[in-house]
């Protein structure tokens, strides 16, 4: 459905995207994951035909973004980072305007509007001026705008930023419900969001694709290099030495208190079982054992490290990731 080949985008001397290639099948939900400034918005703008790439080709539903922009525009719904709203219009007027410029047949438009308004939960506010709506409602109007002409491809740029937790869940559910009938690309800088909604995650960092994988496999690969933090009741001088001898442990260091230990473990080893056995045997009183949650920074550290020659192979950039 979406096919991106060797796309490079330069702004003057700055390279925003560096030889990106990927393809997405019909009905898939894919997340673009990366920190701010990684090139997510640039990629999305290129996909929508808003911006031409410096090099490379983009095809959406078989249509080239540069050669047949008209067809591409008909096939996509786009929610930019800032929802594109006319604040002086009411929700109804706004959707009517969008429907017309998206060239929805005038006879079908009222029905389409009713469907979308119900789907996005805007029925209560359809007569209100957009400028008076809350952030959450505005985001929904933005989403309604992208969905109105029932496009097969949806491109959503950070659809949940700035929303409160309840609104985030609502929007995520809405997106999940659209899966199957729509091909969806969304960008996010939250790892949890990507793994919660998407079937596949494309991790992008400094304009390059660092990894493409399913959330499960990505999670498994990432878990291999997690760090563990352990707190015991009594400090034991020999414990530190003993911990070193557990197979798979790379490094042990003292945490914030003498009773806390931080263990870095080898790739592919889950040492939690052996660790608890050891601690129980020494009878120091295990109070807490936790794996340290991964932040996006850790993910990038891990992924960029494994890119080095000799490291375990996670997908390397520059290769056409077709999964």
């Amino acid at each position, binding site marked *: 459905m979406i096919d991106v080949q060797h796309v490079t985008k330069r702004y003057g001397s700055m390279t925003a995207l560096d030889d990106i290639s990927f393809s997405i099948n019909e009905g898939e939900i894919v997340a673009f994951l990366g920190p701010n400034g990684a090139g997510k918005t640039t990629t999305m*703008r290129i996909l929508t035909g808003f911006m031409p790439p410096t090099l490379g080709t983009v095809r959406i539903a078989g249509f080239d973004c540069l050669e047949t922009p008209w067809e591409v525009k008909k096939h996509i719904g*786009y929610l930019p980072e800032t929802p*594109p709203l*006319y604040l002086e*219009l009411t929700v109804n007027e706004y959707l009517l305007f*969008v429907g017309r410029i998206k060239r929805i047949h005038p006879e079908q438009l009222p029905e389409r509007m009713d469907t979308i308004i119900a789907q996005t939960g805007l029925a209560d506010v359809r007569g209100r001026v957009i400028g008076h709506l809350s952030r959450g409602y505005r985001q929904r109007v933005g989403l309604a705008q992208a969905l109105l002409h029932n496009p097969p491809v949806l491109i959503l740029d950070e659809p949940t930023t700035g929303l409160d937790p309840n609104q985030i869940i609502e929007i995520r559910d809405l997106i999940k419900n659209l899966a199957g009938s729509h091909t969806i690309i969304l960008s996010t800088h939250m790892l949890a969001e990507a793994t919660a909604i998407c079937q596949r995650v494309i991790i992008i960092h400094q304009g390059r694709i660092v990894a493409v994988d399913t959330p499960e496999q990505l999670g498994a690969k990432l878990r291999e290099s997690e760090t563990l933090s352990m707190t015991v009741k009594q400090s034991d001088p020999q414990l530190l030495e003993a911990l070193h001898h557990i197979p798979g442990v790379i490094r042990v260091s003292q945490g914030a208190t003498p009773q806390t230990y931080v263990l870095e473990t080898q790739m592919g080893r889950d040492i939690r079982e052996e660790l608890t056995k050891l601690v129980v045997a020494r009878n120091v009183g295990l109070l807490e054992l936790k794996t340290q949650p991964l932040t996006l920074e850790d993910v990038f550290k891990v992924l960029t490290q494994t890119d080095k020659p000799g490291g375990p192979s996670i997908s390397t950039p520059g290769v056409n990731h077709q999964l």
Partner: protein
Amino acid sequence: MTPVQTIVAKELRSFFVSPVVYVIAAIFLAMVGLLAYWALANASNQALRLMQIQNTYAQLNLNDMLFRPLFRSMNLILMIILPLLTMRLFAEERKLRTFELLLTSPIGVNEIVSGKFMSVLLVYAGLLSLTGLIPITLSAYATFDWRPIYLGYLALLLQGSLMLAIGLFASALTENQIIAAFLSFGFILGLWMLGALGTVVGDTAIGQVLSYLSFTEHYERLIRGLLNLKDILYYLSGMAFMWFAAHQAVDAYRWK
């Protein structure tokens, strides 16, 4: 509804929910009304004096004494007021990121530019037609030649349209409305000064080109009641050029 009509309808809606248009209209109409009143008072004073000196009933020529000076002053008012009308056209779309919606929809840049231009033209034409009350009211009390008045209104319409087209282009250059207003004011002022420069340079080739490029002589001929195809063509080509420049500016926004 065609895409252009859709844009026009949306723009008109946006114009009339914002207080800016009403403020502009009020200032414009108040100034024009005041200037007309002064010109009329001045004209009747002179007529009175003529009557005292010559002891005859002098025929007051309203075309010379009222309308032509009024049309000249209106031109100046338009130079200040029309940039305020056009400043939001594209600048606001850029600021609010709604440009991304327009440019990712199956609608052409030419349709967007045309729609915006037509909407602001309609607002201006409406404003201008309200000043038509002045000659209509006066016609009940005096007789004057209507032809220069029709041509004067044609001149105002063409002159205003050119200024609006300049403002349209200026608005496409920036996302700041204030800068857009000053840019179009600057362009219009520059074009006006070209005429003055042309007069200074005199009757040389350069002088003639400069005078032709400025709107002053074209406008002056029209309000004197002279209909010349050359002058009409000047305005139409100027508008077409500015339309094209705005089109390019909108297109260029995507390449940045």
